């Protein structure tokens, strides 16, 4: 019990630090005292205030929400599919979102505002197709079928995306940034369209925490306790799809988070109970993405690098170190 509490306390501290760093650091130097003033509403106007309020604050909030969403998506998928390699990639959402976004970038560059819509719709489409295939025929909704259908969808959309990129190589650079995964300072607009999907995803995931624990003891015990195993899996799939597609719509393809963060919190806290893993993955994911994003836009300022590689740089050593201790 206490080990878990310690880990949670550590994660929350990391989250607070990462948030402060994200707000205080950037291409333009804004003194921390001024940052705090602006946040408390005592700003003096001018470009610094605009930078903090219209650029850094929305971006930080996006990083926190997307990081939490991906962490949760990975945690509930790993629980529902009883598979440590499960992540939003496995149910085809990431590849579908990637295709939808690249479609807009390459074929309709004038309507770039539609990018989140494209990513969201194709991400959800891919997940829906995976569930339809997995729930048909015999062995409805079995884990094996979901994973195989997900891999099939992943291959399909990855191939389609590669085909698009090959056909229009001149438009590839804008697409690369999306594929590598990155946040951009675009104000509140994107979040204003996408937040309902996050909200629904978070709520469903929250409701699934106890049912997933029951599922961990097997379908029969879950049924004995009054749950319906296939419904839990379906619900987890839907919540994960919503969270992952919404995340891709805003931040590109950041699959790594959903796979690794739940494992890191499990190994650190020594517990697989979802009442601990799901919230811890949310906090850990948010902290990791906020920290990674801050690094990505300050290391080579004013050039902004895609954040995907940074999270790998921050997360993989931690993951490997914990792995050595755990095994």
């Amino acid at each position, binding site marked *: 019990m206490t080990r878990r509490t310690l880990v949670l306390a550590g994660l929350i501290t990391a989250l607070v630090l990462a948030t402060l760093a994200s707000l205080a650091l950037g291409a333009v130097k804004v003194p921390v005292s001024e940052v705090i003033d602006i946040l408390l509403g005592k700003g003096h106007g001018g470009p610094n205030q605009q930078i903090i309020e219209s650029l850094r604050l929305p971006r930080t909030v996006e990083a926190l929400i997307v990081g939490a969403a991906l962490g949760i998506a990975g945690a509930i998928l790993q629980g529902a599919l*009883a598979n440590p390699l499960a992540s939003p990639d496995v149910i085809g959402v990431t590849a579908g979102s990637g295709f939808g976004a690249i479609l807009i970038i390459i074929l309709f560059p004038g309507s770039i505002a539609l990018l989140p819509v494209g990513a969201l719709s194709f991400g959800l489409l891919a997940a829906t197709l995976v569930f339809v295939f997995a729930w048909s025929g015999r062995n409805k909704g079995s884990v094996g079928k979901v994973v195989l259908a997900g891999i099939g969808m992943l291959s399909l959309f990855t191939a389609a995306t590669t085909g698009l990129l090959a056909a229009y190589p001149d438009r590839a650079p804008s697409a690369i940034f999306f594929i590598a995964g990155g946040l951009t300072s675009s104000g509140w607009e994107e979040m204003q369209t996408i937040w309902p999907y996050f909200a629904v995803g978070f709520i469903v995931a929250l409701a699934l925490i*106890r049912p997933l624990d029951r599922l*961990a003891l097997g379908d029969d015990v879950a049924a*004995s*306790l009054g749950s319906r195993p296939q419904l839990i899996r379906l619900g987890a799939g839907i919540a994960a799809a919503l969270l992952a597609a919404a995340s891709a719509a805003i931040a590109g393809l950041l699959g790594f988070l959903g796979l690794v963060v739940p494992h890191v919190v499990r190994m650190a806290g020594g517990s697989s*109970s979802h009442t601990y893993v799901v919230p811890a993955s949310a906090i850990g994911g948010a902290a990791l993405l906020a920290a990674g994003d801050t690094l990505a836009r300050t290391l080579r300022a004013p050039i902004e690098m895609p954040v995907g590689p940074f999270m790998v740089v921050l997360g993989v050593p931690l993951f490997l170190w914990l792995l050595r201790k755990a095994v």
Partner: protein
Amino acid sequence: MATDHKLLSAEGIEVELGGKQILRGAALELERGELVAIVGPNGAGKSTLVRAVAGIQALSAGRVCWSGRSLSGIRGRELSRLRAFVPQRMPVPAGIDVREAVTIGRSSHLRMLGRLTGADREAVDDSIARAGVGRFAERELTTLSGGELQRVQIAIGLAQEAPVLIADEPTSQLDLGATIGVAGLLRKLVTEHGLAVLLVVHDLALAMAIADRVVVVADGQTVASGEPEAVLTPERLAAVWGADARLTEHDGRTALHVAWLDTAIAVRAP
């Protein structure tokens, strides 16, 4: 009056799985304070029968009533307070210790995001004590032996605080010592704690020793129900199992005597 109703009353149970008719009109009853052993050859439908009455397996026909109420009208959470189902082998998740697992067994008593109350914690402690797993309550499930795990599974079921415990072949994969332990636990639950237990077993000598009543399932139907001595006669053993065998009880021990190499009795067609 509620006491007029049997705890469980099921008849005409038919179940089809994967195109095959597994159960074709089986029946089962359970009263308070009795341990009923379900026996029969492999593929007879014993597991399917108990899963059907537990509400875990869908029926194609038949009626199941728990305390006079039709199974179809009872929702999941309510059903979990009427019976606890202990599967033969549950998956053993990493990172969960015994106490956590038993607490999960208690979750049907908790509101959606509700916290554990004092009563809930007591129930968990109680289940752990009754199942005799207190010695290793803080150990992770992955570190337990077969027998210890089976007891934990029973503890998880006990946490539901249901009057009926249904156990599907809890002893089939345990060694002699562990089997004795689980057998004793199940008997104690009935005798000392007033539970009703429905138990699927292969071991006929064990069934005779601990069961108040034995139900024989063969070919998808219940062919006999009654006291062990009355049901498990040599004639029955020959007819249902195709065995030249006899059950005896002497000095507090039961034994199954089998003519292993005698092929005089025709082997039953599957």
